């Protein structure tokens, strides 16, 4: 990719010092369905809207939140197919680390390597930046962590964050509700309430996805039934 005739970058500086392609990529992200994540004292929760284009789509076949390693999961906002490429690359990087060191990859290292890939696509020849921001959640030897990775390749660790549509409202809501000693169960309720804030239509276990990781270090996506239970608790 990016060799031979395409050895020049398509992402170049504008006179104002911006990389316009990255700005446009961030616009694509802002048009994507809302995702958010909250780091609790004993775990992390990430959640995303799962609005499908038609009622005929089989929602069981759509997995927006995916596993990168047994203890790390990722949600995205933006272009789904771009996120799949990144998930694939990240999974491979995690496995390579495991093969080399016989040890699960620390979350910060996996995030860094993924961010490096995203940055490469803003500088290599013949390619465009990824049109996704990722929320990566995991539990490793440094405890629960939540990271956001942007199309530019910059990454940040967050206590709570939202990406996609409706970001400013969601973040304001999270700022009000977040406490440092929040536990995972509270965080799940808060995540649902935040999603509900900007949700168009009736929220249910079929049109949102929630992934959690706790001290057991096993990341899992909640079943629609479990999500419905949490929704009922929140009412």
């Amino acid at each position, binding site marked *: 990719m990016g060799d031979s005739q395409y050895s020049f970058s398509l992402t170049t500086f504008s006179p104002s010092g911006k990389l316009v392609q990255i700005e446009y990529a961030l616009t694509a992200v802002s048009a994507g369905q809302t995702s958010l994540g909250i780091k609790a004292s004993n775990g992390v929760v990430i959640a995303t809207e799962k609005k499908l284009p038609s009622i005929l789509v089989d929602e069981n076949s759509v997995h927006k939140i995916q596993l990168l390693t047994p203890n790390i999961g990722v949600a995205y906002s933006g272009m789904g197919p771009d996120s799949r490429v990144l998930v694939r690359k990240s999974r491979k990087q995690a496995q390579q680390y495991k093969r*080399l*060191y016989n*040890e699960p990859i620390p979350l910060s290292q996996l995030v860094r390597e993924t961010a490096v890939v995203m940055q490469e696509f803003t500088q290599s020849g013949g390619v465009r930046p990824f049109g996704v921001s990722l929320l990566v959640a995991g539990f490793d030897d440094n405890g629960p962590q939540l990271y956001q990775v942007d199309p530019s390749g910059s990454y940040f660790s967050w206590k709570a964050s939202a990406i996609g549509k409706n970001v400013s409202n969601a973040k304001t809501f999270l700022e009000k509700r977040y406490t440092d000693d929040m536990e995972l169960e509270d965080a799940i309720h808060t995540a649902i309430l935040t999603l509900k804030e900007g949700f168009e239509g009736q929220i249910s276990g079929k049109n949102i996805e929630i992934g959690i990781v706790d001290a057991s270090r096993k990341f899992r996506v909640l079943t629609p039934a479990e999500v419905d239970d949490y929704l009922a608790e929140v009412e």
Partner: protein
Amino acid sequence: MSITSYNGSALIAMVGKNCFAIASDRRLGVQFQTIATDFQRIFEIHETLYVGLSGLATDVQTMYQRLKFRHKLYNLREERNMRPETFASLVSAMLYEKRFGPYFCEPIIAGLNEDGTPFICTTDLIGAKQLSKDFVVSGTASESLYGACESMYKPNLEPEELFETISQALLSSVDRDCISGWGGIVHVVSADQVITRTLKGRMD
């Protein structure tokens, strides 16, 4: 003449009570001619992790440089030292990369885990790891070393007793091998200190 016995070497690592000892001979030879009597085979990777490399001297040096490089980068990225088991996996992977044109060296890895328990292991020249609870040996004198360690080793020795045991095992074994010897060097590592001593044996 085998390439692994071109330079001559003898290495031992032993497990003690919350400590470990790693020792080697000091001879560097070109077949039967002795070139140096202060050759370094044991290297510190970090305060509680040491690696000893036996075999072809050029590969000993290159392997050490490559391992030091990898650990430095790891340290910068992960902002912590490598655990001994992790390092052993790294050594194994690096050796296997050269499966069909290997480094002619057989490393011994010895370190202390974060909880203070000692860890030792050895690998063959293409990375087959061999963990051990008591001792590991490597080098041209390995057969004698195995015998000496087997009879002299006792579990849960304190650092000073461990020093005596490993020194006796090393000196008696290299005396039975004409291409290793010319003294020895022993490092006894506990959580809070490292004691390094040189040994004077039969200087031949």
